């Protein structure tokens, strides 16, 4: 069994840190959580603390009436935003909006290798469900 390269570690955090900090070392969880936070942070949200000025808050779309053109544009925005992460080399997103929940199955090719996950965004929370690549 090949040993995965060490991608470092970070604290588990999707929409909030846990009561007790949990260390994340799995590369695709690390990258996936970063992408999830990137896609639930208002543009420029981190600029107020002098950090990366990017971000796109997908929660703004969940109550929106969206036609095929808007969905296509959103898909481009999501992929463009994800590609800003240094460890993401390509990404394919397929957003669908159903009953106020934005589901985005994503296939990501990272420097560690391909993996897939589904980001599910509603008005009140965001979830990430990882699946096998």
């Amino acid at each position, binding site marked *: 069994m090949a040993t995965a390269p060490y991608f470092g570690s970070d604290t588990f955090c999707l929409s909030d840190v846990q009561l007790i900090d949990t260390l994340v070392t799995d590369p695709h969880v690390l990258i996936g959580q970063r992408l999830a936070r990137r896609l639930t942070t208002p543009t420029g949200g*981190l600029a107020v603390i002098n950090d990366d000025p990017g971000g796109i808050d997908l929660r703004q779309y969940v109550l929106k009436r969206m036609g095929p053109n808007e969905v296509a544009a959103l898909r481009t925005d999501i992929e463009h935003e994800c590609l800003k992460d240094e460890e993401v080399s390509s990404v394919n997103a397929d957003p669908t909006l159903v009953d106020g929940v934005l589901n985005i199955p994503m296939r990501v090719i990272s420097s560690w290798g391909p993996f897939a996950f589904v980001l599910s965004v509603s008005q009140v929370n965001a979830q990430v469900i990882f699946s096998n690549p």
Partner: protein
Amino acid sequence: MTETLQELLDPQTVQQVFNLLIATYQANGFPTDSWQPFGTERTRLMAIATAITDLSDNYVPTIAAGGLLDYAEQITNPSWLRLLSENNFSTPYEPAQITIGNITVSVASGSGPYTISPGQLIAVFNASGNRYINNNGGTATSVSPIELSWNAEFAGAKYNDPSSATITLATSLAGVTLSNLANNYTDVAHVGPGTGTIAPTGSPIGPHQIVVQINSTGNAGTANWSYSLDGAPYVLVGTTTPYAIPGIGTIVSLVDGPALTTSFVEDDEYLFNTPGTWTTQAGSDDESSANLAQRCRDRWSTISPIPVNNFWDFLVRTTPSVGSQVTQVIVLTDAVINSKVNIIVAGPGGILPPSVIAAIQAYVNPRVLLTTQALVISPTTVPITLSATITASVSLLTPVQNEINVKMINYIDAVGINGVIERSKIIQLIMSTPGVIDVDVDSVTINGLASNKILGSSTTFEISDLILPLSFGYVGK
């Protein structure tokens, strides 16, 4: 760790603090290299670095500088220096003062009479737009105009409007006009307990300041007195009254006070200037940091048994009731009398009213050594006539004239004691006025000469007095 004052004074950037935090984490074995934007720990550290930088940038340099006079003077927020000056030097800062002056209310024939209450009227100086409110009242009729005292609407040096200005009434009364003509002489200010007064008369020739000193107690005709003209040594007159001071067209009369009292008391001083001015108190801005720091430095000299220049500087800048009106001070040992010190003072708008000079003199006198004589005087005023031919847009002619008037007044005021009035600056000020198309450079003269005007010398002290209205020709285009 901070090792030098300079490190405390230099604000740190967010990136510097962030790098410091990262280095600390690295030293403790954390995998900081993998922390990317939108990573949890990196975001936390950036937030902490931002908060620390806020402290380091906004507070640490000012706290470090705020306790040291030379550095506190440089802080943009003057509160630090004010705190330091009050706590360490027992020298509170002087707040801005309002201009107070006299304006005459005249009523046209067929109008009035008007009974005017304090605070009822608002006068507007057309050139500057400055507004003044009357602080006393009275009845004005068509045969007896009334002179009222007026306070500037707000404190500040920008309210030093000239005499003989065009003034309109914002709170209009039918047939009422306002004027602030300067009399031949200012009111006479008095330092000392005597009840007598001085009455200057005659047709004055040129601007002068006269200080009358009583040399022996008595009444008019028996009290010996002398006078000092423009800061020169006193000239003994004897008991003669009235007396015409040679060369300046001024006749000085001693006038007794109430009966059964001795009118004139030895060492009393009476001060007046010619020409007069409409102001009785000069407006001034909040004391500048440079001025306040200078007073703090001067403070050390007050514990010396020998009065040095800083001591005199401190006294005149710290005189109670005068406040921030004194913004320029030159201390000079008299060229003729060794033990005499001439203290030349002026405010942001030029020379100060005699009542202010008298207040300073009264504050200085009891603090002078017995063997020393300190004379507080204004610099000699030099009338300045400016001429120029200006081409301006026809539709903007009036606002152009008003703005140029204000600019010239402010510039000439800012030149200060023994400054240089520059033609190039005058041209620049005119050309930077919206609506001005051109100025004929050759036509720009100062007192008739196409050259800079240098005021004073190492032994004489002069300050400019702009003659209004300006001799500017305007060509509409």
